């Protein structure tokens, strides 16, 4: 009796530290490939055998039904899903958790995202334990649904969503109106847009002309990344945003938009694409205009955001100068960890968990690409 309480507290202690790790996002965590995952206990210092046994006892072979509802099927979400699966696999082997995983995604107009509401209602009807949601639908709508769902005992975890909850009350209390257990994401302003701008500023020594290829007007992601980007650019009187165009988050439109802007401003020093696809389109436009890519001293900097395998390849080739890696695999893992900590171990988790993001360029591409590749290499599937 006593011992069990002891082990429990011990376990809690361990996990608490880990979850805080996750939330603050240490390097170790960021490079969370299979072997280095802390919860799986291959730590040199701590022996977690006892913990594992205790958790296994607590789990007691139960099945947890998880729903996964991204706004659209795309590489980013596939990586996130794989990360989640890998984490689930770990837990299965260590604690004997059994999993049911169902993905629901609309095949079109990801930007209105109303379809997701239907998916969620179905997860609730099917009495799932927890659902991971990312939707472009009005935040108020989603929060409403989470409230109704939670009342029926389903836990909701938002991922990769903006922190704008579109609630008046949020002005006074940041987390007010968040009806999901937690919001596992990153700050699109300061962890994405701003980083990109900062990188450009540093490379260009604070002097130069920039054009922006934006996502579809009206999307929250677009809005926020642009905010962050502009905010940093303001700090450098030498930097100037000369033009902007809509690239609709797709490569071809990005190419066309960049090509148009390049004819008008052939002298620019940097292109910011709000996602990697558009940035790569822009990079193609640079080639087409027979202009020079950035070589560290001269040429045009092209920077995107996402952190996809394809993007990193282009960084190696020098077609893409840099990208903001938001660590989708890590996001996936964190989703599972957080859910497990809260749902199974009954821990309290932060309302806003920010996964670490990082600028990836030639200098550090190996680290992060190998990480993603490792995650994708596991043939784990649920």
């Amino acid at each position, binding site marked *: 009796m006593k011992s069990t309480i002891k082990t429990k507290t011990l376990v809690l202690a361990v996990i608490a530290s880990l979850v805080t790790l996750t939330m603050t996002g240490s390097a170790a965590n960021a490079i969370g490939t299979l072997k280095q995952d802390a919860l799986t206990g291959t730590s040199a210092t701590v022996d977690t055998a006892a913990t594992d046994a205790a958790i296994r006892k607590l789990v007691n072979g139960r099945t947890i039904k998880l729903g996964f509802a991204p706004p659209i099927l*795309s590489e980013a979400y596939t990586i996130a899903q794989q990360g989640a699966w890998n984490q689930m696999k770990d837990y299965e082997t260590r604690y004997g958790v059994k999993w049911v995983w169902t993905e629901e995604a609309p*095949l079109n107009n990801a930007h209105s995202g109303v379809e997701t509401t239907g998916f969620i209602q179905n997860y609730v009807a099917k009495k799932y334990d927890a659902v991971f949601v990312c939707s472009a639908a009005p935040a108020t709508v989603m929060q409403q649904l989470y409230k109704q769902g939670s009342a029926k005992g389903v836990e909701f975890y938002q991922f990769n969503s903006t922190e704008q909850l579109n609630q008046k009350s949020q002005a006074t209390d940041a987390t007010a109106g968040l009806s999901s257990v937690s919001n596992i994401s990153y700050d699109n302003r300061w962890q994405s847009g701003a980083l990109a701008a900062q990188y450009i500023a540093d490379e260009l020594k604070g002097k130069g002309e920039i054009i922006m290829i934006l996502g*579809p*007007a009206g999307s929250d992601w677009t809005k926020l990344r642009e905010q962050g980007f502009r905010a940093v650019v303001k700090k450098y009187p030498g930097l100037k945003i000369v033009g902007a165009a809509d690239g609709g988050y797709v490569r*071809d439109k990005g190419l*066309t938009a960049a090509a148009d802007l390049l004819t008008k401003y052939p002298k620019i020093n940097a292109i910011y694409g709000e996602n990697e696809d558009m940035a790569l389109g822009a990079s193609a436009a640079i080639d087409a205009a027979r202009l020079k890519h950035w070589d560290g001293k001269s040429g045009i900097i092209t920077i995107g955001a996402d952190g996809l395998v394809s993007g990193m390849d282009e960084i190696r080739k020098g077609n893409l100068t840099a990208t903001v890696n938001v660590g989708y695999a890590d996001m996936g893992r964190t989703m599972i960890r957080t859910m497990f900590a809260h749902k199974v171990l009954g821990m309290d988790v932060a309302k806003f968990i920010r996964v670490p993001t990082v600028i990836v360029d030639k200098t550090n591409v190996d680290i992060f690409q190998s990480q993603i590749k490792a995650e994708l290499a596991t043939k784990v599937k649920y």
Partner: protein
Amino acid sequence: MKKFLSDPILGVIILLLLVGGVASFTVDVFFTLQNFTNFLSGSYFVMLLAMGMTVVLISGGIDLSIGAVMALCAGIVAKLALQGMSVPLVIVCALAVGAFVGCLNGLLVTVVGLPDFIATLAMSAFATGILFIWTKGTPIVGYMDETYKQIGGLAPIYRGVTVPMVTAIVIAFALGAMLKKTKFGVHLFSVGSNRLATRQSGINVTKIRILAYVISGVCAALSGIIMAGRNTTVPPDLGGGYEVLAIAAALIGGASLMGGRGRILGAILGEVVLAMTINIINLLGVPSSYQKIFIGGILLLAVLVNQFVISLRTKILMRSTNKKS
């Protein structure tokens, strides 16, 4: 004079001059070779779609599947290229698939007798579905090499000449000649204009209609091959919305949903107008939130100009006949 006035593409020509004229005054760099090659290079693959669509429209049908078919064929190119198949073979396969889907459309519309709208809408759902199953949502990457760069027009084959450009021109002449100078062309118009009469004059209407869809399927395939090269990756949602763009281009170019009307040159110019509009928006730096409104306005302008030309024509014709008597 009469002939020129009755030509359906007169309207789009005027529109082109109108838009282009305004642009060249407002934007300094607009009227440069560089800029034109730019926005044209971005529109060749839509031109191909629009040409195929025009053929179907002339035959009295409509093909909502071409966007998805384009994406599907791009996917095929990517997948086969990854498996190391030689370029010509890849292209042949893509074209075959395009033709096949077109044929399927034709059969559904003629033999099964489904409304063309529904049949092709369903077909586009199929094509997209297949692409999704292949890609599982993750774009197909890593098939690009110099050849595909050239196919996509990212690298010229000689000076400013690119593969998409050549393809578009060749197809334009081929289809144009087909419509004007061949038996099949006449029969296409005939089927679109009065199906029963055409059947009565002993023409195999079903065959003609199916062929129309096959042609648009092949055009979609061509455009898909180019797209694969141009886009350098093939995401599952590649084709979204291009069919509507193609229809718009064709209609601006003087085609009619009632069938029996349409010009290949018209379709091309129609697409040029649309591409030009986006180009101008970007050059003017119109906030992207206003783009859609802008495009809507241009579409309206397009049809209004067309209408104006028609009324003008009838007026002039009337006068000329009045003078005669």
